[in-house]
């Protein structure tokens, strides 16, 4: 640690020597990491949406005739594994619900002389157990028909899966690009300082001593990019939450602080790790060329 001041000064010199390239690599890394943060944010929000939708997965079971005692059927359904809430919806409540859905158009229900809705059972289940639950409910005596909204849920799950794959691709792309940028910058720095490196080797300096300022440069550039990305993503999420909360309040967003903490932690730790790795790649490729 006695040389930390020297290492920082050397890192500063290396950065200043190639000022323009380093500024652009800092900005480029920052924007790439911002893109990563963006994808992770969308991923996080959509995952939250799916989790909530999975929790809210709801099916409706209709009776083959008006039951005299629906409680027996309800109790049978409650015992099924994967069911977490069962509720009886009477014909009148079903009508009220439809009126609420139709809003101003609800007058069309007045055209019916009798209430056209039947009582049914509203069942909330775990989406991943939808098949056995549906089968079990269909087998219950007194149940005529079970309606599920699996199609919609499967579509949303598909979109989330696609986002997840996209996320992994973006992570891979960001990692590779950052590694290439940083290792290239380090190689360039080593090239510009090759005479100094040769001299230090002839004086007996170990590779760790020679290489540390370069690792520091890679770390500082990438971590700086990570900080920039974290600032940008924080601004974006704060604004986005404000706007989504106002215009699309029904979208179940994850808690903002938790989402931000996760993304900022990922960006900072990821950028630090990528910076160090990129520098080490840059150093290793050069040390192969310069023996002695």
């Amino acid at each position, binding site marked *: 640690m006695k040389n930390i001041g020297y290492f920082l000064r050397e890192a500063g010199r290396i950065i200043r020597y190639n000022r323009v390239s380093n500024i652009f690599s800092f900005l480029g890394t920052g924007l790439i990491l911002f893109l990563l943060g963006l994808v992770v944010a969308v991923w996080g929000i959509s995952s939250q949406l799916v989790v909530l939708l999975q929790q809210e997965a709801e099916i409706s079971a209709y009776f083959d005739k008006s039951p005299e005692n629906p409680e027996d059927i309800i109790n049978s359904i409650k015992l099924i594994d994967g069911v977490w809430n069962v509720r009886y919806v009477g014909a009148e409540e079903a009508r009220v619900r439809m009126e609420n859905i139709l809003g101003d158009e609800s007058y069309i229900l007045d055209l019916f002389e009798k209430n056209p809705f039947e009582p049914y059972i509203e069942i909330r289940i775990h989406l991943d157990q939808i098949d056995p639950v549906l089968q079990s409910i269909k087998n219950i005596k007194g149940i005529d028909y079970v309606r599920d909204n699996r199609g919609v849920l499967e579509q949303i799950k598909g979109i989330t899966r696609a986002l997840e794959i996209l996320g992994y691709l973006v992570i891979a792309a960001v990692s590779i690009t950052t590694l290439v940028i940083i290792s290239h910058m380090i190689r360039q720095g080593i090239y510009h300082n090759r005479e100094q490196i040769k*001299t230090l080797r*002839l*004086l*007996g*300096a170990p590779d760790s*001593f020679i290489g540390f300022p370069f690792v520091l440069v890679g770390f500082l550039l990438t971590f700086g990019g990570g900080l920039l990305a974290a600032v940008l993503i924080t601004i974006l999420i704060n604004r986005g939450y404000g706007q989504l909360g106002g215009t699309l309040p029904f979208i179940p967003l994850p808690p903002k602080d938790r989402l931000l903490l996760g993304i900022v932690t990922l960006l900072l730790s990821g950028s630090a790790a990528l910076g160090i790795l990129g520098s080490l790649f840059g150093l290793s490729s050069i040390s192969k060329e310069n023996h*002695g």
Partner: protein
Amino acid sequence: MIKARNVSLVYRDGTVALQNINLDLQLGGLYYVIGPSGSGKTSLMKLLIGMEFPTAGFLEVMGQPMRKRETAKIRKLRRDIGPVFQEFKLISGRTAIENVMMGMRFLNIPLNKAKELAKNTLSRVGLEHKTYTLVDRLSYGEAQRVAIARAVARRPALILADEPTGNLDHDNAVKIFTLLESFKDKNTTVMITTHATHLIDDCRTATILRVEKGKISIERGGERI
């Protein structure tokens, strides 16, 4: 200190730099390696510091066999060697003291002690007034003395100076030789190469190694008068 048995060095292009060299140099000695340009003096220095490796024979420096496969150990060995290069190899953009300290930062010397050693050595080579001057702003002779200070400040067991007088005039060249000679003691061997044989005529304490067409002969030891 230095043991060579039938050492030869042939470069990749076929140039024979040194052939069948046998040497037994002792700790605490003063050695001048003389010979015309291209005779093999610098090649010998390169072998001793591990920049080149013998293509035949066996070479040992301070107990360390100089073989390519032992580059890690040779890197450590270099910490006991104080090299003064023909072209100085000072690190530009740094001050004189930063250059001198550069050779000590990775050694087990506390920072304050290293700084003190660097200042004392710069003072000894007559550059205390240039301690914090960028080496890029030093004259040729001053830069040469910074290079010497960097080599000797860390108290190496072997000082290797390759053509240290370069283009210096007679008086300044003798001053540099005298300065380098002054670092010789019972724990420090000094080896200096030069093609300017007339400058060492009055040095009687040194052992002269004459290199000619890649072969070495030991001429005399004496005393500078």
